[in-house]
């Protein structure tokens, strides 16, 4: 199990485009992937799940990866958050 804590830094929050990016990226890996926010956990490979998080700018999320490629998956997904999903800050 690999765990990461990330903050939503892009101004608009996890809206449609960032949510698609997370799901597409996570789906490339075999590991299971969950996102936890305020004690509420969703499947990170589900766009509906990610959108129901309604994560706004500044929100802190816990990313949980479990599987053979969990380290790589954790790095790839965390990077999306760090880069603000390619949106100009």
């Amino acid at each position: 199990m690999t765990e990461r804590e990330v903050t939503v830094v892009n101004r608009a929050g996890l809206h449609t485009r960032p949510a698609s990016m997370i799901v597409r990226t996570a789906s490339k890996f075999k590991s299971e992937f969950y996102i936890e926010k305020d004690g509420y956990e969703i499947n990170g490979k589900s766009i509906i799940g990610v959108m129901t998080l309604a994560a706004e700018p500044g929100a802190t999320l816990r990313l949980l990866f479990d599987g053979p490629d969990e380290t790589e998956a954790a790095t790839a997904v965390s990077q999306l958050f760090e880069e603000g999903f390619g949106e100009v800050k």
Partner: protein
Amino acid sequence: MNEHTAHSATGVGVSPGIAIGPVYLYRRATAQVPAEQIAPEAVDHELKRFEQAVQRAERDLQKIANVAQEKIGADSAVIFEAQSLMLRDVALYGTVVDAIQEKRHTAAYAVKEVMGKHRKIMEASDNAYFRERAHDLLDVQERLIRHLRREKLLSRIQEDAIVISETLTAADIVLFSRRGILGCATDFGGPTSHVSIMARALGLPAVFSMHGITDHVQPGDIAIVDGVEGRVILRPDEATLAHYQYRKTRYQQIVLEQRKLAHLPGETTDGHHVALKANLEFKEELEVLPTYGAEGIGLFRTEMEFLLRGRLHIDEYAQYQTYRKVIEAVAPHSTTFRVIDLGGDKMLPMSHREQNPFLGWRGIRVLLDKQDELLVPQLRALLRASAHGPMRILVPMVSTVDEVLRFRAVYDRVCASLDEDDLPYDPNTPLGIMIEVPSAALRAKQLAPHVDFFSIGTNDLTQYTLAVDRGNDLVATLYDSLQPAVLSLIDQTVQAAKAAGIPVSVCGEFAADPRGTILLTGIGVDELSVSPTYLPEVKQVIRAMSLDEAQAIARAALDAGRPSEVKALLGQWLDKHALDLKHLLELRPGLAAAEAAS
């Protein structure tokens, strides 16, 4: 209701033009999905049906994304790609498969249940943007259910149909347009929705907010959609049909004729120039400007982009890019950006509920209270854009000198912060105010030294001066910009501007009413800004009169005691030019009706 009687109702004309054709009543699929169970031996078949429906939906969405991208731009396709991703989402696909296998639900019922649960979560969000995304889930849900029922929706639409529906999504209208429909009308929806923008971009006449039009439709109906007047007529009698056939032909002729005027200047017969500019809300509308011969944008309503997104945060850089695009497209003409004007009837879903929003927290009052979140980022974005071409900044809903001074202080601070960040901007960008509150008009002389220009907003000025909410059917007929009290405040504002040597413009529907065009020119307004579609008409009026004539009419109107006297004066002049101008009233019966009622 007699099924043969005509039914006529008004709504909001969101896309101009007139269309006549047979009705296609588009019913959305949410209606009835019963909680049925299937036999154990039917499970495999149901799973196969579900997979087929998903595949069909994927093909649909791919097609829609392609059309949207090609006709409207890449940004608009993102939403359809995300919907496509939802179809294979474990939270949808996996859960539906489980429900079919374990609970032996029908696929349609399982889809409705699963999506309903997710929608509820999103609808409960505090954030309007996320609440709105629940519509995307609904769209996916309905698309799947439609395919599960094998409703071959589109193949039943005739080429020349008028689509009538409770609501339409952006995806619907894109696909319908490919089927060659003529126009559409819906119960809900307003002019700022995405689907309205698409209707305009696709050139489809459309009237929304009809409240109950779907209840009146019967099989085999013929419908008239009048996007100019915002009216829909079902089952028209022969005389009405003939009238609208004529209106449609005239509309097309007039549009063609007027477009020929596009390259001519807005000049009276004695050579007095009135700048004719366009009111705009979205950068998507820019391409129409040359067609209508606009000399720039007199009012760019920046709040629409925020209302469309349902949130207050659009980052500075994104705003800057939008404004820059607009400025560069309009140059060498100038663009006047009105800073975010929220409140009144333009509420974000998270706005405070007020007893009396039109007398409440709106315009500059919101901006001064929300400096860090709203005003500062927007002013920074606007000023950064000023480095790329001519532009002006306009402040809404000012009622006192103090407000202007406070705004100026923020403006100066923003300039200093841009200097500090070494970002280029034009330090001479004109800063002006809207005159739309009677107190501002009464004190125009005292306000003038603090600003670079005035822009009179006749819609609000009329409503506040006469204490009439024109959205209220009980008093809407009392709303009349030709009331001498309104004209007198306009005149006072213009005289104050002249004395201070600053330009004054009018943006508001009154400027597009031929009678308003005459009076405002006579009073001495330098610039009129109207919806682009009205520009050719306004130009036609100006080119038909002399400044002397307009001034004489304006003087008489200001001395008049009652609006009927003003109307008689204008009527005489319009009669004299009846051959040229009659069609203005003919095509806009709203004006003609107001005339008849007075």
